[in-house]
């Protein structure tokens, strides 16, 4: 079995090939299924097998480029990518990412970065997971109950604000009409959060598209992957250029698994009901949130760690 080990030249350790292939397969599957990059799940897993936090995050971004290309391609063939919406979200994401990086610089100078990053992670995962879980459970109730409740509910303040914005255009693929400012503003907000949290932002973008932009779930998955692809291309280049932390060997092994997983995930995604998809994603998000919260609350096994992680 010795020959099944591979040396990771930038991480500076060796790991079993099947471990990286398996992790890639699992995360690629989730990526294709839910439209998330999987960075929020894979980076901590890579750290658990001994890869330093900076190399884990950078190499993960590189493999997400492969998984999201594969996933976007599969969803594009299935007619699930709203490119018009995706491009507006990408523009917003780039603006937000730039603002977020500046915000992190200020927080690091003040000395509060670690606190803000971790709290943002737990709070965002908690809110998104709980909301998606509740919403999906509600939708599993009989139709009559839902219709009666919907009739009683007034239009939300968010919907009223959204309708008041100018430059409304029709997004044919999503079947909705919105002001172009909506995806730009929401993309910027997600961009700020992903820069703070150091992730592609797919797991925040998916609920934003579903609940705030009211896009159909299957178009959400494909469009989210399209947006994640551009975010991770940017991160991969920046990490390679400034920090030299992208380990191509890690990325290659992960992407062999993740590109296959993404294809399988995309096909299963098309067969599952939207509420089933949401409830599974919500459960995963909540599990990660609980794991992170425990990490913050329980006494750490080691008081010192190598610099660069959350």
């Amino acid at each position, binding site marked *: 079995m010795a020959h099944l080990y591979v040396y990771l030249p930038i991480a500076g350790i060796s790991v079993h090939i099947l471990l990286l292939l398996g992790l890639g397969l699992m995360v690629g599957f989730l990526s294709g299924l839910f439209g998330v990059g999987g960075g929020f799940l894979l980076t901590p897993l890579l750290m658990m097998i001994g890869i330093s936090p900076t190399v884990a995050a950078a190499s993960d971004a590189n493999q997400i480029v492969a998984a999201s290309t594969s996933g*976007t391609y599969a969803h594009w063939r299935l007619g699930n990518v709203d490119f018009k919406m995706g491009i507006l979200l990408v523009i917003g994401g780039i603006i937000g990412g730039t603002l977020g990086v500046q915000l992190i610089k200020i927080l690091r100078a003040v000395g509060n970065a670690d606190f803000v990053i971790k709290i943002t992670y737990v709070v965002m995962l908690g809110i998104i997971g709980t909301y998606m879980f509740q919403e999906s459970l509600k939708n599993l109730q009989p139709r009559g109950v839902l219709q009666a409740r919907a009739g009683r509910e007034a239009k939300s303040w968010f919907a009223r604000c959204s309708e008041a914005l100018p430059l409304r255009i029709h997004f044919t693929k999503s079947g909705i009409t919105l002001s172009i400012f909506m995806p730009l503003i929401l993309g910027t907000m997600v961009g700020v959060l992903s820069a703070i949290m150091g992730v592609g932002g797919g797991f925040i973008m998916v609920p934003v598209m579903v609940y705030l932009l009211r896009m159909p779930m299957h178009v959400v998955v494909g469009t989210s992957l399209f947006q994640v692809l551009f975010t991770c291309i940017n991160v991969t280049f920046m990490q390679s250029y400034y920090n030299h932390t992208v380990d191509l060997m890690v990325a290659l092994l992960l992407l062999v698994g993740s*590109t296959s997983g993404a294809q399988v995930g995309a096909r299963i995604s098309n067969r599952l009901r939207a509420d089933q998809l949401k409830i599974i994603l919500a459960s995963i998000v909540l599990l990660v949130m609980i794991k992170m919260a425990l990490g913050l609350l329980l006494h750490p096994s080691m008081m010192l760690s190598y610099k660069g992680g959350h």
Partner: protein
Amino acid sequence: MTLRICKASLFLGLICIATSSYANNVIGENPIKLSVVPDHIRVGTTYHGTEVLFEANIPRCNGVVVKLEGRDNEVTLNRKGRVAVLWLNVAQVIVKNAPQAYILAASDKLANICSREMQQRLGLGLESLRKRITFESEKPLIGSEFEEFLRLNEHSGLYNTNIQIELKPAAGDREELSVTLPIPSVMPPGEYVIQLYCFEHGSLMQKTEAQLSIEKVGLPLLISTLAQEHAALYGIAAIIIAMMAGITMGVVFSLRAGRGS
């Protein structure tokens, strides 16, 4: 005046070189024959750490220590602390004079082989490391930094002080020493020194050393060189490779799906 200073410096330099070469060579009368296998480790694609067999034919003595050490390093670590109910990174700790790797094998407990002063002078054992490694932080130190740093390095295998040396009697009042030193895959490429010390009733009788080098070769070397020296090209290549892999897999799966339907 300048010429005099130059001459004095040259003379002092020669004295220093002569003294150090004497210290690095055999102290006693009987030379030590040693072998290090391998003495050059090549870190290729399938490398996952290795073992170095250190063997020596030494004069009979009642305590032997073998030390593998890397060059001193400066590292910055995060230190966790409690903020309200949460455990967060609260300070950065700069660790100075810490060897990259420290692997120690002995024929007995160090306390039974030589005095604390001798251990300190030769850099043997954890107590000598404790005095040598320094910690600096912008926030007050908590006092357990050395223990935490040791745990971190023992966990990765870079520090290991629990290796037993086997000694077997040999011809002519000599002994055959054999010890296997584990080299974890995280040990960074570079030059390492393996030193052998023979003690008799607490006094250093013989000392000798050998070199061990670890070097990246093949694909790991190519990737490291590209990542460090051609970062922009490396970043673009990483993105293109990933996108090509994604599209290829997409096409393969769509062809398979087309055939299946």
